[in-house]
């Protein structure tokens, strides 16, 4: 069957400009099929990492809902037990409080998280996100760390005057390090704190929206001891989370509910599902573009070659052989387009792995999973062949006498 690739190749070489155009269109369809999911994967990883690094760590242990307990009791002994499990790097207790923060004439509701900085440094990256001032010490009882959204800022009005007509504030309107804020906790305790530092990131972050105090201060306010709202467990390898969670479960922690980072981050799972739907839509659009392009190109090609197809049939070329020539052309379009598209995508991904995209949400490194790359290639190649099938079949089944009467 040497004749099929021979004729397909010769036909394609003849129309170089159209072939190059079609191949690049297919290459960009492949980029569309793969780069968009890679971008979304990178985006959800950015969210996921942020949540893991500041809110859940790799495993989070919380009081079982059915137990109606607000806290885990004997948190220090639970942590000792957890720290002994192989694969666990460190653990840290958090106490959650809610309250309202007051500054001058501004006030804002906030989630207050209490932690033991010296221990928490091994588990979360909250202390590394300090933008101004310093982070807490274990013994700080009169200091507070504000997230930058809580600290807020003044927004200039349209003519550039601060505080002028149309001006507004965000958060508490711009609290500076060293200034004092008052917090009214949900249990009714009110206390004034000196702002020791402001935390946050350039992009999306939970820390920007939180208030942090020391665990010692939280125990004073709540009048509790050796209790925690949650214990965050950092692992040596986050992909071991399921296995280590089972080991911790086997060690026996009463009235505790345990979730891996994947189970805990329902927010990012929701984002991934949303992105999944968006990806399906972009895939559908890419397939429509590919099928239309290849279908039209093959259809025009066969219509233009009507007489030649008739002559080839007259001199002894079978219908199926003629159909295969055009299908082979479609296959070549698909394969070459995919290879070029994949080349561009992988070069771009390599570049972006060294130079992440800086978005308002944070630094983003697109991640392309091998199965997405393979499935996208298969979709593109199969769509190309399917698109070429109908016009190729129509061309091969034309009556010889109808076609050879056509004068070129």
């Amino acid at each position, binding site marked *: 069957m040497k004749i099929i690739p021979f*004729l397909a190749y010769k*036909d394609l070489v003849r129309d170089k400009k159209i072939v190059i155009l079609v191949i690049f269109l297919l290459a960009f369809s492949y980029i569309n099929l793969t780069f968009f999911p890679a971008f979304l994967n990178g985006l959800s990883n950015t969210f996921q990492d942020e949540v893991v690094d500041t809110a859940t760590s790799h495993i989070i242990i919380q009081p079982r809902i059915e137990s109606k307990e607000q806290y885990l009791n004997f948190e220090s002994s639970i942590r000792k037990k957890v720290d002994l499990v192989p694969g666990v790097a460190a653990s840290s207790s958090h106490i959650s409080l809610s309250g309202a923060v007051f500054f001058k004439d501004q006030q804002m509701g906030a989630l207050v998280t209490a932690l033991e900085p010296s221990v928490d440094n091994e588990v979360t990256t909250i202390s590394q996100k300090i933008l101004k001032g310093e982070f807490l010490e274990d013994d700080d009882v009169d200091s507070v760390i504000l997230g930058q959204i809580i600290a807020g800022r003044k927004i200039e009005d349209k003519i550039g005057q601060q505080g002028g007509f149309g001006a507004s504030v965000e958060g508490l309107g711009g609290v500076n390090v060293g200034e004092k804020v008052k917090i009214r906790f949900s249990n009714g305790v009110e206390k004034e704190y000196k702002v020791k530092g402001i935390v946050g990131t350039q992009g999306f972050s939970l820390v920007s929206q939180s208030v942090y105090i020391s665990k010692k201060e939280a125990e004073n306010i709540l009048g509790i001891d050796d209790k925690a709202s949650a214990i965050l467990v950092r692992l040596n390898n986050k992909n071991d989370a399921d296995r280590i969670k089972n080991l911790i479960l086997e060690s026996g922690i009463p009235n505790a509910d345990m979730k891996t980072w994947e189970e805990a981050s329902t927010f990012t799972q929701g984002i991934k599902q949303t992105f999944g739907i968006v990806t399906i839509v972009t895939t559908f659009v890419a397939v429509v573009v590919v099928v239309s392009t290849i279908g039209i190109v093959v259809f025009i090609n066969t219509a233009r070659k009507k007489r030649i197809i008739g002559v080839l049939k007259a*001199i002894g*070329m079978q219908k199926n052989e003629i159909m295969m020539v055009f299908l082979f052309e479609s296959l070549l379009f698909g394969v070459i387009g995919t290879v070029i598209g994949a080349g561009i995508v992988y070069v771009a991904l390599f570049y972006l792995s060294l130079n992440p995209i800086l978005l308002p949400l944070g630094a983003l490194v697109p991640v392309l999973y091998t199965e997405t790359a393979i499935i996208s290639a298969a979709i593109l190649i199969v769509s190309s062949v399917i698109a070429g099938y109908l016009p190729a079949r129509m061309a091969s089944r034309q009556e*010889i006498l109808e076609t050879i009467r056509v004068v070129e």
Partner: protein
Amino acid sequence: MIKLTNVSKIYKMGSSEIHALRDVDMRIKKGEFVSIMGPSGSGKSTMLHLIGILDKQSKGSVIIKDKDVEKMTDEERTAFRLAEIGFVFQFYSLLPELTAIENTFIPNMLYLKKASDEKYRKNAAEVLKKLGVGERLHNYPHQLSGGEQQRVSIARALINKPQLLLTDEPTASLDTKTALNVIKTFRKLSNETGQTVVLITHEQELGAMADRGIWLKDGQIDKEKRF
């Protein structure tokens, strides 16, 4: 070689019928060079299409090389044309993206599927040289004159050494001198290799170069003459 018995061909155009051929009986012997002549609409091309098994008769029987073509499947008819019949068309019908030698070896590639590229090229070059276009092997159709293109299409028709060569107005787009040369080529083929040639033409003087002429009129044989 060719035996048409009581052959009719009727085309249906809506509710009306057009009788392109009416009860035609014709025999062509192996090695004979026959020209079929007649005015437009006389049934010349219809007869060539039936002999070339490109079309099916409405009535009667068409036997080519002792085979009743009506009993063949589509695939068998195509395979039979490839092995036994060479076609030369009025408008050359060469593939513009192929050189002279490539156009010529296409039927050879279809017929000798397992042969090497060198074999195809060697076979094609031999035929093209015999037809006097051996210097133009690697030229594309648009680089060849009308006469040269027609010679390439004759080479393509001959490469599988078919027993029957069917030519449909092969000189219609050529000047007188070139047309004469093309017909002389057929004459030479018939004399030297015993090739059976059927020439459809409306030019009497060219048709007279065959062994025998058959004139058609209104779908019937009007007269026959041996030259």
